């Protein structure tokens, strides 16, 4: 598929708040995103910027103390038509068919994503059987217990597990971290989703394994023609895997556009900070320079631009009072910063 413009997932004005004992936490503050079929959208941001919350919202996996804004829309464009995930009842069949069917998800902690008391195969086959109808439409084959097992073994083999016939009957604790993440990918992809959400899938792994897993994911994505929503706080990973990216800060998207353009010429001061923090081969002697300052507590979001407390180009009187709106920079890019808005000109 030519990097087609076919929309797959469209998030509009997604806002998520948590009620906590300390007050209201505004974790995601009205973000809009699109993911296209067969493409990877990277979301990058520091810890606590709301990346996980936003993606959990797409799967409707938020805990009971979370609330979606009234106007939040999470539109999934399927062949059968468009569906608003945000509006589905929490325990509906529709929602269950999406989870693990149209949308697969892998998590940051490969150890914790498997239950320790069932074999890898058990947890895999369960998902395949749960989505029998979906798989029948996708592959033209209706699985029973036997053939689901064979399918699971093929998937384990596909993600590069040695000796999958043995592995399938092993327990998670018998696999190494990298193997477990491969198994998790196999579980998520065994139902052939059209969208894979990967929440920092490589963060817990060591560097060589990280690279292997990334390669594997890229390969599988092309093979299966699925879209990916790839979350990370590592600019290097984004550069490698995502055609488009969005930079999140304190629950807002501050910059978005084609990855290549943004990396070559970042607009938002925060994006520039993140890129400067990236160790490069040609500047290996330079020390890692993280964006200076601390992220404000989400309980007390700063007025105006959320980043102004740490911004090297902070304009007093403007940035700390007025929330910058998205400014179109052309070629699919936009930035939310007063340096680029009408207010600056």
């Amino acid at each position, binding site marked *: 598929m030519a990097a087609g413009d076919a929309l797959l997932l469209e998030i509009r004005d997604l806002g998520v708040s948590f009620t906590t004992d300390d007050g209201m936490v505004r974790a995601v503050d009205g973000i809009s995103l699109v993911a296209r079929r067969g493409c990877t959208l990277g979301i990058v941001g520091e810890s606590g910027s709301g990346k996980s919350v936003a993606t*959990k919202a797409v*799967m409707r*996996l938020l805990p009971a103390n979370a609330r979606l804004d009234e106007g939040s829309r999470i539109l999934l464009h399927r062949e059968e038509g468009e569906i608003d995930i945000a509006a589905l009842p929490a*325990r509906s069949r529709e929602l*269950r*068919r*999406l*989870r*693990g*069917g149209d949308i*697969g*998800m892998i*998590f940051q*902690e490969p150890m*914790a*994503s*498997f*239950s*320790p*008391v*069932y*074999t890898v195969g058990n*947890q895999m086959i*369960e*998902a395949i059987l*749960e*989505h029998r109808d979906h798989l029948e439409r996708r592959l033209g084959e209706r699985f029973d217990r036997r053939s689901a097992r064979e399918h699971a073994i093929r998937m384990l083999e596909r993600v590069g597990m040695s000796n999958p016939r043995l592995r399938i009957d092993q*327990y998670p*604790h018998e696999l190494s971290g990298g193997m477990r993440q491969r198994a*998790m990918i196999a*579980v998520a992809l065994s*139902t052939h989703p059209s969208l894979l959400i990967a929440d920092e899938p490589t963060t817990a792994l060591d560097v060589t394994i990280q690279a292997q897993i990334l390669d594997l994911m890229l390969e599988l994505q092309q093979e299966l023609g699925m879209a990916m929503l790839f979350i990370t706080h590592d600019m290097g990973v984004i550069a490698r895997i995502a055609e488009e990216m969005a930079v999140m800060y304190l629950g807002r998207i501050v910059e978005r556009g084609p990855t290549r353009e943004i990396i070559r010429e970042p607009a938002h001061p925060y994006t520039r900070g993140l890129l400067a923090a990236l160790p490069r081969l040609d500047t290996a002697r330079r020390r890692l320079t993280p964006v200076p300052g601390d992220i404000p507590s989400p309980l007390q979001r700063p007025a105006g631009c959320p980043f102004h407390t740490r911004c090297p180009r902070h304009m007093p009187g403007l940035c700390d009072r007025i929330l910058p709106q998205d400014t179109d920079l052309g070629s699919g890019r936009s930035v939310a910063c007063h340096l680029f808005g009408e207010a600056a000109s």
Partner: protein
Amino acid sequence: MLRFLVQRAIGMVVTMFFVSIMVFVIMELPPGDYADRYAFRKFSGTGVSVTETDIEGIRKQFGLDRPAWERYLTWIGGIVTRFDFGPSFAFETSANAVIGQRAGLTVVLLVGTLLLTYLLSIPIGIYAALRRQSLADYGLTVVSYLGLAIPNFMLALILLYVSVRYFGSTIGGLFSPEFEQAPWSWAKFVDLLKHLFVPAVVLAWSATALQLQTVRATMSDELNKLYVDAARARGLPEWKVIIKYPARLAINPVVSTVGFDANRIFSELPIVALVMSLPELGELLIKSFLDLDMYVAGAILLMLTAIIVFMNFVSDVVLALLDPRIKLEGG
């Protein structure tokens, strides 16, 4: 698995060997022996004067004059080879005959109490964890603290009072009067169950309160684990997610404390049995110590510990079946 079973079984036998030695030492501990006691009981007030030689004769008659290790070997040999726990001096029959029915009743009460405890605490604990901080959860917490705070004998008395006052029936003893002497029949069996139900409730009360909180706490922990979300993200129905994943792990601590619960029940049983006039072992144990009827005491101690050791064995095996992370080969 077989190796694991054999290992644990051997462990059980070794434990019982040491227990038997300890029990025998306990049997030897009280000052004086049954010969003195027997002479006193038989001849006091009859005007017959008892001499040292008479007592010596009695001692010989009961075999109390032989060295301790010899008596231990005879005793344990009888138990192992013939399941014969020795004589009962006080009742002038065998210890087996004295203990007989009471042992059965004690085991039935124990198993009934454990079943009741787990049937109540596991589902309720899981429910409370799912409805954390709801009215139902707070209510259950209050009830279970009450369960821990109210002493068993008081609960037994209250239940006795209520049943006599409002239902006109006695729940004390084993049978209603009309069945006391009747031959065994279905009706008599049902009557027995009715009588055992209340003591089982009394005994299960505090254990249920405790286990309910354990299950609730473990379940709350497990519910927050990533694998639960991962299961949801695979599209499983919510009930299946809950039952197959966190609930399965939430019962582990309960299983691992079966032996502990059995122990508690044994130590609470005598008081409850006393209040409800049930013929069980604990009460007999105290009596036999008072009478220096040491073979009966020894038999009871041995049986109670054997049951607890066996319960621990069962809990080990079940736990190993429930949790594959427990290495089946290791010790």
